[in-house]
């Protein structure tokens, strides 16, 4: 009897004044957080608000600089993830730690006591996955599984430890709407058993739909604790962002010009065993159009970008045409000289070299397209550092890039500011074609809206823009037409106004047009 009273009085987890410094920067500053038994608690915040730091301290990956963690009434120093697990804290990371070449059961076994036989683990995992509605075949190889299925492995792996608290970091960022619904059912089952869930997200509707309480972080501090169901998305966003985010302004220029990008039946074999094969991809982008390509991560977006950018030219020159010229076999600089610009997904080590200065990073993408301005001395190609530095400064001013010093290393900029620079680097050339992969991934809301606005403005000035993105909000904000990529196939494009979230979700899940069309044709 007393025990149940205790249980209700003592919260499962209480965090008091938790602070974490990285150098002089407070990533978390005096965080208070209470999680009761059997609740789904949301941790809301923008990228860089300090959510990951907080969670890493709870899971023992990082040690707090100050403050305390009270677990079931007892102050604890969580020394390691192993310790966290033994206390009853399970964690599902945003980026999975799975070996693609191993089976599901083998991957689960890696995190458990090595003495337990594999067969036992497979049985337990299968039983658990059935009980929680997480269909999973323990003997299948991870490489063959969808992202949603991979996430289930991580969840089952966490559940095998019988945790009292499960932390999920941005679990739906990689899921289709339908897969997300299934995940929510599982979460409700866990809640019904009296387990608690700490649910990290920046998707407001989701949080309102499934969470009992929410704690909002901004700049490392708690800016609000509330019942999300009593708030409006706008009021939650205010707590997250601090001010109203500038809405992206668009006025559809309905007159589209000439076709600038024309891809016909592009087939690209997978370069590595875990890459995606592009199958029969066709797309057409006209001047003034933003074609958005939606899709769950890992369905061929990277491969499509590689083929469009010319980083990996394709076998048949005619399959890709830009401004009416066959460019399939042309390298990236050849395409740039035709007026195309490219922004890859990964900022560090792809779009930019982290420990090089911004001016060097400007030269990185424009050494050939701006040869006459940036290089002197003919064959010797002597770099005009002064010209490039002033061009870099112009770009920083244009895109409002916040930086310290005149020409700092790319690594010293925040993600959002570096992305603004990388986008600005291409916009500065007034490209007639711009191809962007995940333009605002990991970028704060202010920078994201500025980048989206810049993409729309570029299209309105008569360029063709391709935006590959996982973020459906972004897609609806910028797109003229939307196509969906799934397993290396691209759907036909739909005018943005005609698509609903549900329809996109179905397309993302691989329900292809062809089958759809086939059915309708059959019916008629």
């Amino acid at each position, binding site marked *: 009897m007393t025990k149940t009273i205790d249980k209700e009085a003592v919260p499962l987890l209480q965090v008091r004044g938790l602070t974490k410094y990285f150098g002089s920067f407070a990533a978390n500053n005096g965080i208070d957080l209470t999680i009761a038994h059997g609740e789904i608690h949301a941790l809301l915040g923008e990228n860089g608000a300090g959510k990951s730091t907080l969670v890493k301290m709870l899971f023992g990956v990082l040690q707090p600089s100050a403050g305390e963690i009270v677990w079931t009434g007892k102050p604890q120093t969580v020394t390691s*993830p192993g310790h966290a697990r033994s206390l009853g804290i399970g964690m599902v990371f945003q980026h999975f730690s799975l070996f693609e070449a191993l089976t599901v059961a083998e991957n689960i076994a890696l995190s458990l006591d090595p003495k337990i036989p594999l067969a036992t683990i497979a049985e337990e995992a299968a039983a658990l996955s059935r009980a929680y509605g997480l269909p999973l075949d323990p003997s299948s190889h991870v490489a063959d599984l969808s992202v949603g299925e991979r996430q289930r492995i991580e969840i089952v792996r966490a559940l095998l430890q019988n945790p009292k608290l499960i932390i999920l970091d941005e679990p739906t960022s990689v899921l289709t709407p339908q897969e997300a619904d299934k995940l929510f059912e599982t979460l409700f089952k866990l809640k019904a058993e009296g387990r608690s869930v700490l649910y990290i997200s920046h998707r407001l509707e989701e949080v309102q739909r499934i969470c009992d309480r929410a704690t909002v972080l901004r700049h490392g501090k708690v800016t609000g604790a509330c019942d999300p169901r009593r708030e409006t998305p706008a009021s939650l966003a205010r707590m997250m962002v601090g001010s109203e985010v500038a809405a992206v302004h668009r006025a559809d220029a309905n007159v589209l010009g000439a076709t600038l990008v024309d891809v016909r039946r592009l087939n690209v074999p997978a370069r590595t065993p875990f890459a995606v094969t592009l199958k029969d991809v066709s797309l057409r982008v006209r001047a003034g159009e933003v074609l958005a390509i939606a899709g769950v991560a890992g369905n061929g977006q990277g491969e499509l970008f590689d083929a469009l*950018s010319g980083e990996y030219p394709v076998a048949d020159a005619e399959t890709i045409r830009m401004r009416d010229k066959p460019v399939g076999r042309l390298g990236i600089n050849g395409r740039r000289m035709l007026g195309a610009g490219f922004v890859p997904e990964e900022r560090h080590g*792809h*779009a930019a070299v982290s420990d090089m200065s911004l001016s060097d990073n400007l030269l990185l993408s424009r050494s050939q397209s701006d040869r006459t301005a940036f290089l002197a001395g003919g064959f010797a190609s002597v770099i005009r550092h002064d010209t490039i530095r002033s061009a870099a400064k112009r770009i920083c001013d244009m895109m409002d890039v916040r930086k310290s010093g005149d020409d700092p290393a790319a690594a010293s900029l925040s993600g959002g500011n570096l992305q603004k620079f990388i986008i600005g680097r291409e916009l500065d050339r007034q490209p007639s074609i711009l191809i962007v992969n995940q333009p605002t991934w990991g970028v704060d809301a202010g920078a994201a809206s500025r980048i989206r606005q810049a993409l729309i403005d570029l299209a309105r000035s008569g360029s063709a823009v391709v935006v590959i993105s996982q973020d459906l909000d972004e897609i609806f904000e910028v797109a003229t037409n939307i196509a969906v990529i799934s397993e290396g196939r691209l759907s036909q494009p739909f005018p943005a106004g005609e698509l609903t979230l549900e329809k996109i979700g179905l397309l993302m899940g691989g329900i292809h047009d062809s089958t759809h069309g086939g059915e309708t044709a059959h019916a008629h």
Partner: protein
Amino acid sequence: MRIELEKRASASSLFQIVSPLLALVLTLLFGALMFWMLGKNPGHALYAFFIEPLLEVWSLHELAIKAAPLILIAVGLSVCYRSNNWNIGAEGQFTIGAIVGSILPVLVPQWHSPLVLPLMLIMGAIGGALFAAIPALLRTRFNTNEILVSLMLVYIAQLFLDWLVRGPWRDPKGFNFPQTISFAKEAVLPELLESGRAHWAIVFAIIAAVGIWFMMRYMLKGFEVTVLGRSERAGRFAGFSSRRMVWFSMMLSGAFAGLAGISEVSGSINHLQPSISPGYGFTAIIVAFLGRLNPLGIIVSGFILALTYLGGEAAQLSIGVSDKVTRVFQGLLLFFVLSCDTLILYRIRIVLSSDRAAVEGRS
């Protein structure tokens, strides 16, 4: 318990400059310790090793002779290493450069022309470059490891030279000594000054160092080297080809090593013999790193390492220790240079509990 290296948030810019000096001081300290354990007076020994060779004109000439191949090779290697290609076989390219460069004076000694010397130097450079092209070819076509291939090719080059001077190229009037005929006057790299033996190789070395410094700092090619060395993916995005960079950097460093080889044979030895190098190609790796892969720094570090060769010879005579001490000093220096550099970028952390789960904690 285990020891981990943890990356520092930011590297101290002061220590980045001080680090090579710190490495030198530590080398001297441990050298003194070694002499003391050998029963020698450390002060006297270090003086004989590092100061005495600097006091006489003839030994300054010797210093320049020894520094020349070190600087020339290390400058080429610095381009290689900056582009993340690991040519460890400069010793072999040096040897092949010397052999190919010696074709004219050995096989057509009757051809007397002012063209002989320039042709020899060019052929030496081409020989070295072609020999370095072997690991480049295997790397780009079959993805072999260029470290192993270039290293193993050193032994092939050395044994090939050995076979040549004992067999087909042996001087018939040489009393059966394993060496070729002596080079004619036109085939000998002239001396720089009246006062001693130092020849033009040191000039080549300085020109190469300044030229490569200019390339790395001001030319697009140098930018390409740096970008591809930092991130192949970013290099591809810039339109640079990492494959072509393998060829370029390997053949450039091979050419420089080959030029060093023929210069050494033509200027200092005047014939081919089984051993033409006290390990310049390997010591140049230390030179390159001690000079922080900067061609101007390499000029300085080249002279420092050349001093260890001279000091070794001097110490053999004056204090009676083996010339293997030279190798010990060079090894100590490389060790301290690399460890000082590592500690600039990382801090050491001792982890008491072993928890393999910690590995998982990434996000």
